[in-house]
């Protein structure tokens, strides 16, 4: 007898009223899909222009998204009066640091508007300055504005903030501006005019993840603010809980998948990199290390021997203070760089002897250097202001840290004045095999309005290609919201294609009509195995074609007979379908790049030449009448940034 039957007979009733197939329709000027950082700012930007805005979120806007639990440093604040860099310089530095493989539109918008967004966030109630003078006299504090900088204390382009309540503040601001917020609804598809792929976007379909109710949204313009795709190569709910990457694992590439199927053009989709950390390491920011939020903590070995910090020329830095300053002859350094930091902007770094990019250790080198494991982050030896900023402020306010790290560790007796937190491979620990990968920045291609190739569809945040973090999401969200509102307020009425809606309903409810079939977890794990084996570190045409064949078989077989027993399982299953779509799109993009690339971490066995000049271009990809169409764009396709920004930003 199957155990399942016994469980079924004794399981409690689903706590929400189940409304499978029941339909409700909402109309608006601007539809914002996703209520994370980009989504909230897009809704705010659009509502301020007088548009009727509806924002739809799979979780609850107050807490959802990768920025839902906070932000501790706000990037690109080069408009701060004390900053030594112009937006143009800082944009160029970032572009150079990625050797041109970066979204110039997004980068320049962030540089122009990041500081302004931060000041707006303060008006919404988020603390951004040391008004109580707790850090008075610290070398990273600007005495005039009482704001505090991170990374490069000379150039001053990144501000430390108390952002743990950022999402609550944004949520309240959206409410104040009359944005209609619809929580717990997963968007399952975009709706095209006439139901034709590539046609104008006239709305979206979705499902309430508690009740299973069907939602139709009709809109003059739509801003896609859904998340980066995760769960694509690595899936496990068992290893460390459901932490497959940095963001919440309900980020299943929904936005990329629905945009792709609607005919939107994407670029950079062939990029992936080895995943490090989340799925097999330790709680993020919760181990001794020296990067990101922990920049630039002193690291010692088990015997207390200090690991040196060096500058870009290999000079050993004698003081902690020097770790926050440019090298002799360097105007500034970038705190968070690309794959292989450009010499001009290379930051001081911890020189663990023999360690590679993934912090793997070399026993021979360690023996010679006399290093004893484990490593520790020596917080007690750090200057008091740095220690307080690191553990008291940033670990208190960074995403996923206030409760999981700060409160939990302190309650367990950790005291930064006395204790050294253990490091694990000097990162967040846990090195996976090379085929355990993560998507690395493929996304929607837009013009300077942040409008995609599809009429009526705009994109922001991690929906854009080569996305950044919190400040990038905020600035591009606000910008896209403005532009989408301007478009909507001048656009005529739209009509939803009833056939497209009916087909979507059939698709999404099929799994709840089945009594047996594969469950979402086994399906997701299987899909990831295909990605690891056929779209892993080393690729060739035969592997990629086999991978696509695998996915076609899965779609016609296991996925087409998958089963969901309640709305929650149905949501996870629909997410997993999106993972399949995302995987297929990634493989098509990988097939189209017939060259290896050092910048993209892209290795083709059948095209071994690395970085041939004719392939130093963006590869674009879209579906047209169901067929994959690819194209090319020069890396600097965005043109004259100043001119284009001024012409499109909608602020003048």
């Amino acid at each position, binding site marked *: 007898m199957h155990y399942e039957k016994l469980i079924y007979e004794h399981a409690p009733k689903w706590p929400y009223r189940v409304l499978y197939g029941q339909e409700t329709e909402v109309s608006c000027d601007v539809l914002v899909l996703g209520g994370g950082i980009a989504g909230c700012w897009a809704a705010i930007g659009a509502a301020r222009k007088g548009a009727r805005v509806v924002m739809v979120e799979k979780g609850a806007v107050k807490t959802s998204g990768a920025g839902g639990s906070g932000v501790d440093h706000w990037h690109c604040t080069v408009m701060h009066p004390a900053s030594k860099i112009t937006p143009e310089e800082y944009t160029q530095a970032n572009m150079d640091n990625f050797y041109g493989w970066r979204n110039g539109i997004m980068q320049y918008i962030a540089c122009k508007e990041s500081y302004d967004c931060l000041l707006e966030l303060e008006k919404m109630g988020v603390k951004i300055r040391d008004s109580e003078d707790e850090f008075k006299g610290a070398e990273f504090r600007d005495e005039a504005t009482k704001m505090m900088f991170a990374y490069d204390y000379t150039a001053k382009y990144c501000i430390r903030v108390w952002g743990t309540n950022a999402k609550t503040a944004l949520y309240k601001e959206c409410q104040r501006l009359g944005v209609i917020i619809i929580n717990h609804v997963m968007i399952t598809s975009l709706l095209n005019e006439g139901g034709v792929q590539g046609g104008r976007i006239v709305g979206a379909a979705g499902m309430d993840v*508690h009740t299973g109710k069907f939602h139709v949204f009709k809109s003059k313009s739509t801003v896609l603010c859904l998340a980066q795709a995760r769960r694509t190569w690595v899936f496990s709910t068992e290893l460390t809980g459901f932490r497959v990457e940095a963001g919440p694992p309900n980020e299943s590439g929904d936005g990329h998948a629905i945009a792709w199927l609607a005919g939107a053009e994407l670029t950079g989709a062939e990029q992936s990199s080895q995943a490090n950390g989340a799925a097999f390491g330790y709680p993020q920011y919760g181990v001794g290390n020296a990067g990101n939020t922990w920049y630039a903590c002193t690291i010692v070995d088990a015997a207390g021997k200090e690991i040196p910090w060096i500058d870009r020329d290999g000079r050993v830095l004698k003081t902690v203070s020097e770790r926050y300053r440019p090298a002799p002859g360097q105007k500034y350094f970038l705190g968070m760089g690309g794959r292989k930091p450009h010499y001009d902007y290379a930051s001081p770094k911890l020189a663990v002897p023999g360690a590679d990019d993934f912090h793997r250790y070399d026993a021979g080198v360690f023996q010679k250097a006399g290093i004893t494991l484990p490593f520790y982050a020596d917080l007690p030896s750090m200057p008091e202001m740095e220690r307080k900023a690191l553990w008291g402020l940033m670990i208190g306010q960074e995403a996923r840290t206030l409760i999981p790290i700060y409160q939990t560790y302190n309650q367990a007796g950790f005291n930064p004045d006395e204790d050294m937190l253990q490091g694990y491979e000097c990162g967040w620990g846990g090195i996976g095999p090379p085929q355990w990968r993560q998507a690395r920045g493929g996304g929607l291609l837009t013009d300077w309005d942040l409008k995609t190739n599809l009429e009526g569809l705009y994109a922001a945040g991690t929906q854009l290609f080569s996305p950044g973090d919190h400040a990038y999401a905020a600035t591009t969200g606000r910008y896209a919201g403005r532009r989408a509102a301007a478009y909507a307020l001048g656009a005529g009425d739209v009509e939803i294609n009833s056939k497209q809606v009916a087909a979507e309903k059939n698709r999404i409810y099929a799994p709840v009509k089945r009594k047996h079939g594969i469950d979402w977890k086994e399906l997701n794990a299987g899909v990831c195995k295909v990605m690891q084996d056929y779209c892993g570190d080393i690729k060739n045409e035969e592997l990629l074609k086999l991978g696509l064949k695998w996915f076609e078989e899965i779609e016609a077989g296991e996925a087409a007979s998958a089963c969901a027993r309640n709305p929650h399982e149905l949501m996870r299953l629909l997410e997993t379908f999106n993972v399949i779509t995302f995987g297929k799109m990634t493989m098509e993009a990988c097939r189209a790049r017939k060259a290896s690339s050092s910048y993209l971490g892209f290795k083709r066995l059948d095209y071994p030449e690395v970085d041939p000049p004719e392939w130093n271009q963006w590869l674009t990809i879209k579906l047209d009448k169901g067929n994959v169409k690819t194209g090319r764009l020069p890396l600097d396709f965005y043109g004259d940034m100043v001119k284009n920004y001024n012409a499109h930003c909608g602020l003048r």
Partner: protein
Amino acid sequence: MAKEDIRMFPNIVTPSNPVIFDEDVCTGCNNCVELCVMDVLMPNPEKGKPPIVLYPDECYYDGLCVKNCPLWQKGAIKLNHPLNQRVRWKRKATGEHFRIGMPDPPPPNNRPPVGGWDAKA
């Protein structure tokens, strides 16, 4: 030995216990249920009782259920890192070793973060 009530069980999912409720403190307001981004929690059919941790294996440990609980400082809800996530540290002066979740922990450090637990402008 007395007769025990031994039954057949499927394996427990891992990790199985991401959040711990104190039934005496939790009022069953379901704020955490509403705000959990992963929908790990379900309202208890019995009103006023702590939520049911229905999908413990889907927790991603952002701690927002705790932070948004009006009674978290009274212990209504606690985040519980699984065993393989419990990080160690060393006291510099004495060389003593400690870890998250150790049986005989040092006294808690009750210092609030800079700006307090609920920093505002």
